[in-house]
């Protein structure tokens, strides 16, 4: 089916990328950081700007060299057709796995805190169904819905201001009591999350104005850093060194909120906004997975693949993860290396090879719709 080229605006891209990092970031990152640096984990959320900048630079330079192509297509140009397809296949399988893990995180949170008796599969499959509908509608539908949902996602955070009377500012001390190394250790998980910004490589071919895109991308990175720092600080001031004992510190914060005996127990609002944020994240990941598959195997219309690949990814949400503890270990120990491998290491290698061999994309790469 021949269709006109869809385009998205840079502002829509940043609205899509913000929940891609922060939707699960708000929930799990503070506790992960606090494990290594009980008082200083907020500093790691500022340091996170470095891997973020690296991801943005990698994605935009690759796109500048090979305009109109995602990393899957440009890898076929850089290291030859068959090796490139192998890289594409690797990306597809890895993204499939990662999409499954993300939906598992979402379903775990919903099930353990709100819907205790609902089966995990039902929760994750219902969101997969909606995400597959969004991917089926195309990039522009995903982008437009992301604008609306991200706005709604951010709004309940204003409620965190209600916590100000309960915060203990003294918890920020002692600062750097064990040196800088714990901060670097605490940096491990957040940097994996921020490197997920590299997924913009799947969307850059649809943007007309690349310079404006760069501006908006750095803006969204700044916003991510600021929000992570604020949430970390907020959680630190509220819970102090107890933060690492909580699975979802921000859930505790929302539960704690009470204003005039009227606004109480607002964690259902956290659930609501988390569904919206995770929908966008899952939609972006699913789109990346579907695009990797279609570009690796040369499928012309990616839309018909949305539902089958969603079903495959939903299986990965259960495979080899029998309980929450295993999921946590996956994130803490494995994800720290796995995610930057695909989001920073491989693209960096490809960019180096392209730079050394001087390969460029001369003609329009032809994004497959």
């Amino acid at each position, binding site marked *: 089916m021949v269709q006109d080229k869809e*385009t998205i*605006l840079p502002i*829509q891209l940043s609205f899509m990328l913000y929940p891609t990092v922060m939707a699960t970031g708000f929930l799990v990152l503070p506790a992960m950081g606090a494990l290594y640096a009980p008082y200083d984990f907020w500093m790691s959320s500022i340091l996170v700007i470095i891997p973020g900048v690296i991801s943005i630079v990698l994605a935009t330079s690759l796109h500048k060299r090979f305009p109109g192509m995602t990393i899957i297509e440009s890898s076929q140009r850089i290291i030859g057709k068959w090796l490139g397809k192998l890289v594409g296949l690797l990306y597809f399988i890895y993204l499939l796995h990662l999409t499954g893990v993300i939906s598992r995180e979402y379903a775990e949170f919903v099930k353990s805190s709100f819907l205790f008796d*609902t089966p995990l599969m039902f929760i994750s499959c219902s969101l997969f169904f909606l995400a597959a509908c969004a991917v089926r509608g195309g990039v522009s*539908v995903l982008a*437009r819905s992301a604008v609306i949902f991200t706005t709604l996602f951010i709004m309940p955070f204003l409620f965190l201001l209600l916590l100000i009377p309960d915060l203990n500012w003294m918890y920020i001390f002692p600062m750097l009591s064990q040196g800088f190394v714990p901060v670097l250790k605490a940096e491990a998980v957040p940097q994996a999350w921020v490197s997920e910004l590299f997924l913009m490589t799947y969307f850059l071919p649809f943007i007309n104005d690349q310079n404006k895109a760069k501006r908006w991308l750095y803006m969204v990175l700044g916003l991510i850093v600021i929000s992570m720092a604020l949430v970390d600080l907020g959680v630190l001031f509220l819970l102090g060194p107890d933060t690492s004992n909580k699975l979802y510190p921000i859930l505790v914060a929302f539960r704690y909120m009470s204003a005039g005996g009227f606004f*109480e127990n607002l964690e*259902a609002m956290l*659930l609501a906004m988390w569904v919206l944020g995770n*929908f966008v994240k899952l939609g972006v990941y699913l789109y990346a997975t579907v695009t990797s598959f279609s570009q690796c195997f040369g499928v012309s219309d990616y839309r018909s693949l949305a539902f089958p690949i969603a079903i495959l990814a939903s299986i990965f949400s259960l495979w080899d993860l029998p309980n929450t503890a295993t999921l946590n270990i996956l994130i803490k120990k494995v994800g720290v290396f796995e995610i930057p491998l695909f989001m920073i290491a491989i693209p960096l290698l490809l960019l180096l090879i392209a730079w050394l061999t001087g390969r460029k994309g001369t003609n329009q790469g032809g994004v497959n719709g």
Partner: protein
Amino acid sequence: MRTRYNAKVSAVRSPRTRRELSEEEKQPLELALMVNLERLRAIYTSCSDLIVRKFAIGGRIEAAVIYIDGLSDASGIEKFIITPLMNEENAEEANLLQLAEKRISVSDKKRVSTMAECIGAISNGMPILLRDQEAVGLACGLSKWEQRQIEEPAAESTIRGPREGFTETLRVNTSLLRRIIKSPLLKLETVTLGEYTQTKVVIAYIEGLASPTLLQEVRARLSRIEIDGILESGYIEEMIEDTPRSPFPQLLSTERPDVVCSSLLEARVAILTEGSPYALIAPISLFTLLQSPEDYYQRFWVSTVIRWLRYFFAVMSLLLPSLYVALLTFHQEMVPGALLSSMATAREPVPFPALFEALMMEVTFEALREAGLRLPKQVGAAVSIVGALVIGQAAVQAGLVSAPMVIVVAITGIASFMIPRYVTGIAIRMLRFPLIILAGTLGLLGIMMGIIAIVLHLCALKSFGMPFLQTVATPKFSEMKDILIRAPWWALDTRPQLYDDQPLSHRQPVNQTTGNKQEGGS
């Protein structure tokens, strides 16, 4: 950004079912008057309202006037056609057309030379004048029929603003448009649709403002319609929409000429139908469906605040019952303590779960509302008393529903009536029911799923190629000043850019050259 029209509709019927022109209809007019009259009488057998008036021009040449009683102006025919021709003296010399120029004072005249053209003219109320020994007839513009006066539209009344509404006659409606937009750049193209009804449909647009692609698309979609009859513009609307299966309308239907003209000035296209007071406007966005013409006639503070109220209540009408059900069934902890205990007390005698109670009440309310539309005035008052007393009071006292539920339903009802366009209100009301069911089964998660599904649908919806959520989801800050607020008139200096190939740049000069400092600055 190029747009792609997702036009996938038309009531295409196979050519076999189309009524072909019969053999008699294709025949040209003959020289002999009697032959022509016989043929016309044969076509119009059993049509007792067909009148054939034979007379002699100047007393010597035979001629006839044929018309349908009730569609043509009988006294005008007598005065302007028959009498002058009867008194004509040099009848043999002139042919019909020269005679007509000399004697007939009717201004709108058309030549007809085939039976089909004659039938077309007669059906539109134009009497046919035929002369012996001439194979050409004359159709005169003497249509006259009973029609409704121009009244205020019932469903779109405003406090401030013109009170004229369209009627069923196409010519009256186009004249209403011309009275507002006097520029000759307002173009009106006519198309005939409907096999048996031969309804005239007019495409109105302002040349130089409307995008050529849009015009082409409108013409193409209208020409694809093959249907027995067009009784209302609603038939056309469903057949040319991008996605007729969506609950949201993608064309605006309005009875007010000022709404149509303001849309034409914003580079949109209007479609008027003979026999229907509702005009269709394309393309539109979701926010057009939430606007009222009064927004632009009142001052901007009033309009802005009422707009915010309207948006809030539109969301309320969609979500309030589902939020109530979700909170009471799954998330009781979110309800403030004192309120929770009073609600629990109120709900104690009710045997039904909140979901069932809500569905029951909502369905009853919808039934009441629909019944109220069709009741004659005398019974209307009784029904509202019945509604208020029986449903409200007695049901609560009988323990069938709880008082908070009645309040929720009442607020939801009022909220849905705040939406100025009836069709949008219905769309939102319809969507309320699945959300209630989702809320009752999955709680807040279910509501979120429903919201995601609705927003996804709206993001994918297009109206004639223009995305339905254009200004918000594809953020155009210059156009948001008419959506988020209603900017004052001196600030509304841009036209919305609907398509890429809209001819005029989007500046519409608005100047306030003189004025007090108090008015101009803020």
